[in-house]
């Protein structure tokens, strides 16, 4: 797994595919923290939700990072499509989580908050960002060219699902009572946004619940994707 991660890391960095999502995320961080003071957990709510979108993009760029022929050669050496797919998603999560850590530490170290965050806020900030990074990455596999042959429709589908996740709370309110259960199919990103904006009023259990929901959803989504990938293998037209 380490060898696969090293290869994916070098290929990803050399391809400059990280450029657009990283520059956009860091640029927005610089913009929002250009004014002071900022509320701590409300700021983390915004940057973690934004990371969810950026992580989905990073996941998409990583899972489709190799051409079909290149991926076949890699698979011949890796010997397992599940290991190869899991390594790509894991790498995307590590990369996105690093951006999440930056989003937590940058305003703290440069004094961009209304006060210095305490240890619990810092730890929970990192965990919320990492959980939403996992959530975003876990969606990307479903909207890759491995399952949706048209890259255009794959990106469109990913954008739509990410948007639905962000707007889940509003959609739930608008749905008739009988259909409101459908909302649980959407990624639980609004749960974490709500928890972070109302952080001070929540019990410890309620603070952990959104993290558990995001990690649980990400785990299930990734596991199902890898099962489908294992059946389908590299059966896609390539580019």
């Amino acid at each position, binding site marked *: 797994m380490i*060898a696969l991660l090293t*290869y994916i890391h070098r*290929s990803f960095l*050399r391809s400059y595919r990280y450029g657009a999502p990283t520059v956009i995320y860091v640029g927005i961080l610089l913009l929002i923290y250009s004014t002071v003071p900022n509320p701590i957990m409300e700021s983390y709510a915004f940057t973690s939700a934004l990371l969810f979108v950026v992580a989905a993009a990073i996941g998409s760029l990583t899972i489709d990072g190799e051409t079909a022929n290149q991926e076949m*050669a890699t698979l*011949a050496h890796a010997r397992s499509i599940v290991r190869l797919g899991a390594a790509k998603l894991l790498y995307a999560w590590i990369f996105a989580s690093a951006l999440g850590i930056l989003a937590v530490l940058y305003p703290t170290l440069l004094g961009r908050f209304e006060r210095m965050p305490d240890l619990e806020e810092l730890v929970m900030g990192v965990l919320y960002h990492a959980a939403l990074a996992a959530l975003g990455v876990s969606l990307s596999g479903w909207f890759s060219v491995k399952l949706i042959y048209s890259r255009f429709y794959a990106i469109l589908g990913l954008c739509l699902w990410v948007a639905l996740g962000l707007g889940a709370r509003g959609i739930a309110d608008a749905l008739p009572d009988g259909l409101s259960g459908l909302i649980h199919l959407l990624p639980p990103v609004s749960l974490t946004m709500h928890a972070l904006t109302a952080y001070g009023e929540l019990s410890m259990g309620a603070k952990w619940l959104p993290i558990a929901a995001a990690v649980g959803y990400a785990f299930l989504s990734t596991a199902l994707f890898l099962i489908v990938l294992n059946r389908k*293998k*590299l*059966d896609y037209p390539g580019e």
Partner: protein
Amino acid sequence: MLKVQNQDSHPTSVDKLRSDRPVGQPMLMLDQVSRRYGTRTVLHNLSFSLHKGQSLILRGGNGSGKSTLLKLVAGMIPTSSGTVRRNGRHLRIGFAPDRLPKLRLTSEEYLTHMGRIAGMNKVNLSRRIEELHDLLELPAGSSSLMLHYSKGMLQKVNLMQAVLNEPSLLLLDEPFSGLDTASSNQLLSLLHGMRAQGTAIMTALHDPLPSWEAVSTTYRLQEGQLRLEEGPAEGHLASASYELDGLLPDVEQAALAAKFPSVQWSAAENVVRCEIPGAEYEDFVQHFWRAGGTLLSLRREEGRS
């Protein structure tokens, strides 16, 4: 024994070539394998097995299913029906797709990553990468990225990654495409050597390649089915001879000369040249490799013996 069976025919046993000597369990067995894309059936109820040291050439027009069959055998894509059985969970498979894309990695970086992913240890991997660069005449340690490589250079890297881990089953899709004559000869020598050491090799080929065809069974993929192509007749095979240039210790030279009296030997410095009658070619090459010989080049000459 290499057996091929199509839906509408009885099993065909192919034992006309000396290369097709089965040893133990087949390395690979396809049973009634079909592959469909939508309503189009590309491969239709194919059954065949491949043993250690056997070589199979696939021919066929564009879109006939050669690449699809190689991918199925490699386990890259699933079958629509039928089963592909590989002997042993840890069967090492080398796979070279028809081309490798231009990457922002040097050939050494790329091969090091592939070798590490395959689980090779660093020392052996480094030695193997250098050896393959020498063999295919590509500068090792070059800082030039594959992004700037020509088609032929990329093909060399592609072939190097396929044989890097000394696979038991080697699958090559148009391996000679883009290679110059010297590199083609080097690749041919490498393939002969690997086959003699027991690697089973499946190759999709377009162009004629007599010296490889002489030790292989050739099939044409047509309308989703494999049809045996008539190889050179026995008399024709026997009328050919082979000229092998290589390195071999003196003691082994004497032993081989005694075992194969009809082989003509000459030497220039430490390189020996062997003129091998067609009928003895197969056995001689096997013994040459087992004796630790290094094959430098191999040419087929028609009608000399």
